[in-house]
């Protein structure tokens, strides 16, 4: 029995639907299309899949997906909590399942009508997303109702403490928008953005402008995870999981961890970094690209520090106009990310991590041996390192 998830699992297939603003179909249809495409991408039959993992927030439950896609017997399924924080958790659960033999081939998926249906940016008022109603009640009466408002509180303090400005945030947004210009499936394809466009975008929750916030989209995305041995017999170059972990830190709340000593720091990401680097035997210098979770631009700055790409408070100097591009120190979200490709709750960032290892990104850097992918910021989260076989 393995005692670590180092090299015990690999991504053998990825699948995604079109990302749109109004899918016109059910979330189950989006989920099953993405799942089926991931299975086809791996070159196996639905009947060979025996495990499924999704988000607690997903509306397409496992057996409905299985029955629709033609998946037969299953021996493993699970759901991961905490919104976008679940993304890497999906991979971690699937990796544990295939490493232990609980299942052979596990598909993880997320599908949502995030624009035409329930919109995340509209906050927690209309319909409470979480069962943790009491938790939200410490914020709702004060009008702190949206992800932007919660993240803005933390971003304000971070910028105050380290002297980061809107221009630093803009570099993240503009770089990813530039990447999306080569990705026809990106919502922002054909819509480049200048510094002037960014600065003119309206304030949402100070200091966050419209273009500091990710979009809302409809779509589905899935990954097929199996052991590296089986993956080698499948159709695609495997993306081997060098290290993967979930991470929640002392004092963690869902989006509102306002009660810790230092709000200008992401201790759960620091924990995730420590774990994946230890497990993989790798460090920040070994990462050739990254897909750092980017629901809001300041999150990227704070993660650059937590994962050791620069020192504490130095991200503002790291994110120059070139550093996050192809030729830069750390090509980041080469597909456009949540900001400019689509808000698939982070699973599309995982798919891009796999494409980078395969050499198939629409913005492919020359040499990619290792890619770091993270999930939601401000929530219990996780990180994974994909490596070339």
């Amino acid at each position, binding site marked *: 029995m393995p005692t670590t998830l180092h090299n015990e699992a690999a991504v053998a297939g990825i699948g995604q639907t079109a990302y749109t603003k109004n899918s016109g179909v059910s979330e189950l249809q989006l989920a099953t299309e993405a799942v089926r495409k991931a299975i086809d991408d791996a070159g196996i039959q639905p009947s060979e899949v025996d495990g499924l993992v999704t988000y607690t927030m997903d509306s397409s439950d496992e057996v409905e997906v299985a029955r629709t896609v033609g998946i037969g017997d299953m021996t493993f399924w699970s759901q991961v909590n905490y919104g976008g924080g679940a993304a890497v958790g999906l991979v971690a659960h699937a990796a544990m399942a295939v490493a232990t033999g609980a299942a052979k081939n596990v598909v993880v998926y997320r599908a949502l009508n995030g624009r*035409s249906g*329930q*919109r995340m*940016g*509209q*906050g927690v*008022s*209309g*319909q409470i997303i979480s069962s943790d*109603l*009491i*938790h939200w*009640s*410490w*914020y*709702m*009466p*004060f*009008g*702190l*109702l*949206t992800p932007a*408002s919660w993240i*803005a*509180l*933390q*971003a*304000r*303090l971070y910028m*105050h403490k380290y002297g980061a400005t809107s221009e630093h945030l803009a570099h993240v947004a503009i770089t990813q928008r530039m990447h999306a210009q080569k990705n026809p499936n990106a919502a922002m394809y054909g819509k480049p953005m200048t510094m002037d466009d960014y600065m003119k975008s*309206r*304030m*949402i*929750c*100070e*200091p*966050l402008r419209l273009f500091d916030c990710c979009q809302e989209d409809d779509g589905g995305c899935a990954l097929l995870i199996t052991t590296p041995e089986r993956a080698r017999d499948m159709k695609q170059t495997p993306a081997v999981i060098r290290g993967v972990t979930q991470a929640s830190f002392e004092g963690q709340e869902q989006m*509102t961890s*306002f*009660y810790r000593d230092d*709000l200008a720091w992401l201790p759960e990401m620091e924990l995730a970094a420590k774990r994946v680097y230890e497990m993989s035997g790798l460090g920040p210098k070994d990462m050739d690209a990254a897909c750092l979770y980017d629901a809001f631009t300041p999150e990227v700055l704070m993660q650059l520090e937590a994962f050791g790409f620069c020192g504490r408070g130095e991200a503002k100097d790291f994110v120059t106009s070139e550093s996050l591009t192809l030729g830069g120190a750390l090509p980041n979200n080469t597909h456009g990310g949540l900001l400019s490709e689509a808000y698939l709750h982070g699973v599309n960032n995982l798919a891009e991590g796999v494409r980078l290892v395969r050499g198939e990104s629409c913005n492919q850097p020359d040499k990619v041996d290792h890619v770091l992918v993270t999930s939601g910021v401000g929530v219990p989260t996780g990180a994974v390192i994909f490596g070339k076989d």
Partner: protein
Amino acid sequence: MSDEKKKALEAQIRAFVGKPVGPVVVGRDPVNEPMIRQWCDAMGETHPAYLDADAAKKTVHGEIVAPPTMLQAWVMEGWAMHEGYDEPKNEQHRLHKVLADNGYTGVLGTNTEENYTRYLRLGETVKALTVIDSISEEKATGVGIGYFITTKTTFENQDGEDLGSMSFRVLRFKPANAQAAASKEGESKATAQKPSRIKPPMGHDNGWWWEKVASDGVIPIQRCTSCQKLRHPPRPMCDACGSQGFDAIAASGRATVHTFTVIHYPQFPGYEYPIVSIIVDLEEGERMASTLVDCKPEDVSIGMAVEAVIHEDEDGFKIPFFRPAAR
């Protein structure tokens, strides 16, 4: 509501888009001095161009003109407008009835935008045509899910000259708290209720805190009765010693701003924007989320001294806010 039923409803309401509400409305009286005087009285408007014929002669108009913002007043139907919601007599009534019959019983006027082409002169007749301009997709709002309906009115004089336009938006919604609405007798049509902030659910672990805010007029801080550790927000067990016993102390109300944001968008009914949202360090050491009042958004800063003030909403709900500390 099933997807199919909702689709059918949406098809039905969208058929109204583009339709005139009814025939062109012609002002009952031409633009006249007595109505201008009454309107100015009611609004507290004292400008002589509207009221004093001699003074008006010296203006660019050369005579008394009507205040531009009176535009709609010339075509208002008076008390007759009130009728028609049970027995629809125009397209707007019919649209609202379709929604009301499907559970969207609440109505809120959300905003209006007016454009004035020029001043109206005495003796002109105002004519208005109102069209149902757009209906939003279904939105989740603080008062419940619903549809925003926008009507657009264009104003002309007797010769067809453009006088201005107005768009008017209302939210037709399913009251989120239908139970509470139903319990208020005589207000079966939630139409008259002013929206209020989202209330905390009063659970076992938090209800006592809000009750204490209301009854004692203080900010309570939960305290472990075993090891005396303070904690906020309240939880049912002490994370230091495991005791479930607790009482509360009253915070002094003195605090400093730890961080803040100014919220502009999206805007929920029941709140006034922009909101200066703050996380404060209470003097006792605990942190809490709140709102800063009596302070312009540009004047808030990290580290600023604030003091608690218990705010009472119109509906009687009490909530602890902060304001800049008295010097």
